[in-house]
C-alpha cells in the first residue's frame, strides 16, 4: 500500500510537470500576445505556433485533475470546494482562453476582443495556479471534517502571492522562449529582446519567494535537497537567459522546461508525504490518510503506465510533424 501511495504522489508530480511544460508555453504566449504581436498578420503567425497544440496541452490539466480525484479524493474535494472562488475564476478564464483562438480566427477582420480574451484567459490561471500551490504548501486552516475553514482572503497571503507571481514570470519566460523558437521576423525579434528581463525578473521573484518560504516553512530550510533543486532552478533560468541572448532558443526552451521539473521537485520535497498542509500542524491530508484504496491505486497505476508513454509518444510525433519546415 505504502509504495502505491508514494508512486501516486510521484505520478501526480509528473502530470503537473507535463502540464507546466506544455500548457506553460501557451499560457506564456497568451500573456505576451499584446507585446509580441502588434497586428493581425503577426498574431496569425504567433497563434499558428500554438494552434495545433494547446488542446492537447490542456488535457494534461484534465489528466492531473482526474488523477488527483482518483488517487487522493479527499484532497481533490477539500481543495476544489475550499478554494472555490479562486478556482471558479480559473475556470472562467480557461473557458475564454479555450474559445478565444477559434473565435479570433473566424471573427470579422480579426477583431481585438478575442486576442485580448486569450491574454486575459492566460493571465488569470498563470497567476492563480501558483497562488493555489502556495496555499497548499504553506498550509490552510482545516476543520475536523478536513474541510477548508478559511475564506477567500486566506488564500491571498504573501507567500502564495509571491509564488503566483513567480509562476507567472516563468510561464511568460517559457512562452517568450517558445515564441522565439517557433516564429520569425518581428515577433521573434521581440521575443528575443524580452528573454533577459524576464529571466532576471524570474530570478528576483524566485529569491523573494524563497525568503518568504523560509519564514512560513522553517523546517524546509534545513533540507539540503530543497536547496539543491532551487539552485538547479535558478541555474536553469540563468542558462535560458544566456542561450536566449545567443539566439539559441531551442536550448533555452529545454532549460525553462527542465526548470519546471526542478521547481516541482523542490515543492515535492518540501511537501512529502503531505498533500495538503493544515495550518494547525495536525490535520494534514497526507498520502496515507487521504488516498484511495489499494485496488483503485493499482488499477490506476496500470492505466497510467499503459497510457502515459503512448500519450508522450504520439505527442512527440505530432510536434515533429508540425516542426518540419514548410508544408508539402
Amino acid at each position, binding site marked *: 500500500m505504502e509504495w502505491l501511495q508514494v508512486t501516486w504522489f510521484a505520478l501526480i508530480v509528473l502530470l503537473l510537470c507535463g502540464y507546466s511544460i506544455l500548457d506553460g508555453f501557451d499560457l506564456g504566449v497568451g500573456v505576451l500576445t499584446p507585446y509580441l504581436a502588434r497586428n493581425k498578420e503577426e498574431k496569425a503567425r504567433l497563434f499558428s505556433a500554438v494552434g*495545433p497544440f494547446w*488542446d492537447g496541452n490542456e488535457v494534461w490539466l*484534465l489528466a492531473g485533475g482526474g*488523477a488527483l*480525484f482518483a488517487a487522493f479524493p479527499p484532497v481533490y474535494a477539500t481543495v476544489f470546494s475550499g478554494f472555490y472562488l479562486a478556482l471558479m475564476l480559473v475556470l472562467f478564464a480557461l473557458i475564454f482562453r*479555450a474559445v478565444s483562438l*477559434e473565435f479570433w480566427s473566424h471573427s470579422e477582420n480579426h477583431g481585438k476582443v478575442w486576442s485580448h480574451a486569450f491574454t486575459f484567459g492566460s493571465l488569470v490561471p498563470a497567476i492563480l495556479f501558483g497562488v493555489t500551490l502556495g496555499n497548499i504548501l504553506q498550509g490552510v486552516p482545516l476543520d475536523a471534517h478536513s*474541510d477548508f475553514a478559511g475564506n477567500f482572503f486566506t488564500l491571498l497571503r504573501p507567500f502564495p502571492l509571491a509564488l503566483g507571481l513567480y509562476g507567472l514570470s516563468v510561464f511568460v519566460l517559457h512562452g517568450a522562449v517558445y515564441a522565439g523558437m517557433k516564429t520569425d521576423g518581428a515577433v521573434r525579434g521581440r521575443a528575443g529582446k524580452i528573454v533577459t528581463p524576464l529571466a532576471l525578473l524570474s530570478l528576483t521573484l524566485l529569491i523573494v519567494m524563497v525568503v518568504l518560504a523560509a519564514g512560513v516553512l522553517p523546517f524546509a530550510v534545513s533540507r539540503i535537497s530543497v536547496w539543491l533543486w532551487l539552485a538547479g532552478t535558478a541555474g536553469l533560468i540563468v542558462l535560458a537567459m544566456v542561450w536566449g541572448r545567443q539566439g539559441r532558443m531551442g536550448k533555452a526552451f529545454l532549460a525553462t522546461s527542465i526548470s519546471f521539473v526542478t521547481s516541482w521537485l523542490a515543492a515535492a520535497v518540501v511537501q512529502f508525504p503531505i498533500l495538503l498542509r493544515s495550518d494547525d500542524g495536525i490535520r494534514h491530508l497526507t498520502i496515507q490518510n487521504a488516498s484511495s484504496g489499494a485496488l*483503485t491505486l493499482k488499477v490506476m497505476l496500470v492505466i497510467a503506465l499503459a497510457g502515459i508513454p503512448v500519450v508522450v509518444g504520439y505527442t512527440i510525433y505530432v510536434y515533429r510533424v508540425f516542426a*518540419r519546415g514548410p508544408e508539402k
Partner: protein
Amino acid sequence: MDAVLLARVQFAVTVGFHFIFPPTTLGFALVILILETLHRRGKGEIYKQVSTLLIKLLGLVFVLGTATGIVMEFAFGNNWAEYSRMVGDIFGAPLAAEAIFAFFLESVFLGVLLFGRNRVSGRVYWWSAFFVFFGSHLSGLWIIIANSWMQTPAGFELVGGKAVLTDFWAAVANPSTFNRYTHTILGSWITGSLLAAAIGAWYLLKKKWSDHGRLLLRISLLVFIASSLLQLVSGHGSAVQVAKTQPEKMASFEALWRTQEGAPMSLIGWPDEKEKKTRFEIRVPKLLSLLIHGDFNARVPGLDAFPDDEKPPLLLTYFSYHIMIVLGFLFIALSLLGIFFLMKRKLHEIKWYLWLLIVTTPLAYVALETGWIAAEVGRQPWVVYKVMRTVDAVSRVVPAGQILVTLIVFGLLYALLFWIFVRVFAKIVRKGPELPAADGY
C-alpha cells in the same frame, strides 16, 4: 436559497450546455471517417473537400466541448465535495482514464486533422481521422461508465461510510453501462448526422455547392437512418434495463400509479400528483407489461410500491421521457421518408423534405437533453442509486451565495458563447466547402 438546489441547477446548466457539443463531435467524427475512408479508396477530391468543411466545424464544436468539459471535471470537487469524498475511490478512475486513454488521443490528432492535411501522408491523415473517431467514442465510454455507476452501482463495498472498489470490471461493466452507452452513442450519431445532413440540404436549397451538398446529404442521411432505426432497438433495451434495475424510475417515466398485472403504457397525459392519477391520458392496455417482460399480464410495480422519499420528481421525469420518445419516433418517420426518396433517386429534388431535415435538427438536441434529464432526474433523490442521497453530496463549505453568483456568471457566459458559436458555425457553413484547408490562422 438552498445550496443543494443551487448546486443542482448549476450542474444541470453546465452539463446541459456541455452536452450539446460532445454528441455533435461523435456524429461528425463518424461522417468524417466515412468520407476520409471513401477518399482513401479512390473517390474524388469532392469527398476531401466536404470532409475538410466538416473538420473545420468539428474544430469549432470540439473547442466548445473542451471549454465546457473542464468545468465538469472541476465541478465534483467544487460543488460536490462530499460526493467526491464518498465515491472518489471509484468515480475518479474513469475520469482519469478518459483523459489518459481517450481525450489526449482525440485532441492531439484533431490538431493533425485541422492543421496537417498538407503535412502528413494520406495514410497518416486517415489514421488521424480514425484516432479522432476512436478517441471521442472511447472518451464517451468512460464518461458513460462513470455516470452509469451512479445509476446502477456495482463492484464496491461500503467501508466506514465510503465506497471502496472491490472489483474494477464489475464497476466498469455495471448493469446499465452497455445499454446506456449504445443509447447515447446512437443519439449522438442521430444528432451529428442530422446536423450534417441539414447542412447538405441547405446547400441544395440555396443551389450553392450542389454537388458537395448532395454528397454530404446522402452520406449523413444514411448514418441518420441507420442510427434512428437502431435506436429503436437500443431504446427498448434501455427501457427494459431501467425497469429491472431502477423500477421506481420506470414507474415515474410512465406515471404508473398502481402496481398491477397487465400494466398499460401511457402515450400522453398530465400526471396529477395530488389526485394520484393521470388526466387526459391516452394509454395502450397491457403494452408496458409486454414491452418489459414479453408477457401481457406480467406484474409491473407502480409508484405505490415505493416510499415517498425514494421517488423521483414525477412531472419532469414523465415529460422529458415522453418528449424523447415522441422525437425518437419522429426521427424514424423522417428516416422512412428518406429511404423512400433515396430509393426513388430524387432525394435532392424534394424541397419540403430538405426543409424538414433542417427544421428538425434542433429537435435532435431536444431529444438528447430530455433523454438525459429523464435519466438523471429519474435517478433522484439519489446521487448514487440507493447508496448516497443528493442532499448529502453537496460541498459543506461553499455558501449558497457563491454558488448563485457563479451560476449567474455561467449562465451569462454560456449564453454569450452559444450566440457566438452559432454565428461562427453559420459563417463557416456559408463560406462553403470550396476553400482548401488553411494551415494556421
